[in-house]
């Protein structure tokens, strides 16, 4: 063993595009490490079962074609968002738990860049889930001129919901020391967000019920998808239902960036 000097390329105080380096590494670990592939496989199995039940099983198929597409798309948005949430919830707390966070904090890459890189990488799970959904939507919606609208709506709403949920998972991850706590809290929050969809339809009507659905980015997004796909409304007719997903995604992404930039640190007793 001998030591000779390695020259470092002269560079700015902080490496430009540090977030892309972090993002690329996260993507490599997620997809080449196999975790993303396993989740994507599980997602495609789930979607296949849903498609089978809604399209080919005569005994169970009580849905109209539009409702089959809607159900598949909403399942894709829900599960794709869940996958993004799980990936984001593992980011900071996972590094903390594995003892790798300190080494990363010692580099000149800013904590904001670390946050953005990890957040963007966790969204890749949603994008892959969406790509897997495309052939199912095409198969279920063919012949009634629905496929294009359904796919665009699903992409827009699903991306907003995924950004919202991934940001939520990342914020939780910043404040927790262990992965188990981070994942548990994130899943609890996800269930709380989806809880209104399980309320009786009478509770979802009226001024109070509709407001309750509108302010929740998840339920508002699902409602908007239903209006476009099932009720065949135009894009702008129910655009007000997109406000909550849009504002929620933007607000939580900004909050995650702020929390990450200031809150990613070692906690006492952690490495």
């Amino acid at each position: 063993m001998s030591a000779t000097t390695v020259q470092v390329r002269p560079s700015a105080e902080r490496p430009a595009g540090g977030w892309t380096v972090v993002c690329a590494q996260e993507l490599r670990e997620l997809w080449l490490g196999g975790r993303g592939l396993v989740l994507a496989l599980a997602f495609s199995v789930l979607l296949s079962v849903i498609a089978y039940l809604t399209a080919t099983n005569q005994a169970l198929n009580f849905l109209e074609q539009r409702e089959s597409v809607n159900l598949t798309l909403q399942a894709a948005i829900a599960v794709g968002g869940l996958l993004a949430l799980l990936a984001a919830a593992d980011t900071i707390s996972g590094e903390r738990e594995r003892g790798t966070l300190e080494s990363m904090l010692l580099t000149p890459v800013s904590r904001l860049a670390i946050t953005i890189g990890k957040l963007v990488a966790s969204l890749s799970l949603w994008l892959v889930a969406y790509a897997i959904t495309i052939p199912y939507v095409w198969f279920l919606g063919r012949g009634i001129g629905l496929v294009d609208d359904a796919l665009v709506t699903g992409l827009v709403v699903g991306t907003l919901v995924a950004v919202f949920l991934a940001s939520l998972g990342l914020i939780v991850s910043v404040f927790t020391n262990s992965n188990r706590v981070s994942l548990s809290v994130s899943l609890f929050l996800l269930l709380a967000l989806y809880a209104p969809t399980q309320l009786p339809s009478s509770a979802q009507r009226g001024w109070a019920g509709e407001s309750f659905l509108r302010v929740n980015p998840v339920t508002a997004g699902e409602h908007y998808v239903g209006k476009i796909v099932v009720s065949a409304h135009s894009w702008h007719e129910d655009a007000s239902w997109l406000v909550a997903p849009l504002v929620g995604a933007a607000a939580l992404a900004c909050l995650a960036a702020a929390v990450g930039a200031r809150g990613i640190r070692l906690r006492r007793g952690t490495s």
Partner: protein
Amino acid sequence: MTLAVEADGLSKRYGSLAAVEDLSVAVEPGEILGVLGPNGAGKTTAIRVLTTVLSPTGGSFAIDGVPHTRASEIRRHVGVLPESAGYPERLTGEEYLRYFARLYGHERGSARAAAASLLDQVGLGERSRSLVATYSRGMRQRLGIARALVNDPSVVFLDEPTLGLDPAGQRQVIDLVRSISSERGTTVLLSTHLLAEVEELCSRVLILNKGRVAAYGTVSDVSRRAAAPRSATLRVGLEHVQRARSTLAAAGIGEVAATNGRPGSLTVTAGGDAPEAALNEGLRALTDAGVPVLAFELQGARLSDAFLAMTGES
């Protein structure tokens, strides 16, 4: 000359708990400073503050002349092997170093070259394409040291690099630390529990206890200041034992007794205000009297004795 590390009254508090209190040090370029202390003494916190991972709650410091307020710039000047550092199991050693080189601003090509060069330097060249999961603890520590060097730092902080290693692994790491200092001219702050290695490697030593500086200076100064020798063990041939005892008694050095279970060995305990001088006087008396002394060792003049005396460890 700009100091490699300069801290003035540095403190880190968690509420009422003072993890580090009033730490002042000045480390010169190329020096190896041993940082010692019992568990919980504040070594790791001090290193985390000096490497900008934690913010100080009081005092100030500079690395290579860069003040602590410019944390990002300081990170370009330091390399760190954190205590109990974790490693991504699914990456190869080469991928791991390449990633960190990129985080420090290397382009893809130079990151690859830097990773290969560093892996060779720490003796992991042949395992560069193996997953970190397959590395032994010693290999991981050497990988961590390679990562600490990826930005060609002027100051390297090594927090217990030999922790959990077998003697051969400890020796490899110690040799590596020595080569980092001698061949690169890099300043090294070495936190360790291996006192013998600190005596061998370090020019100066900092002993922390309960967050405060218990001692700071050269190894010999600290050893003497903390535990001035009051006794010595000497060994003479069996036929000279009686003559040695009578010579020492005549010189009025102090008490002389046979060392338990060691024929030919005598333990001399000096009294008075200058015991070390008295013991040396006794040695001179023996040589003047023509008693052949086979061995003479002052007790309580080793770094380990100073460490125990200053930290209250027993």
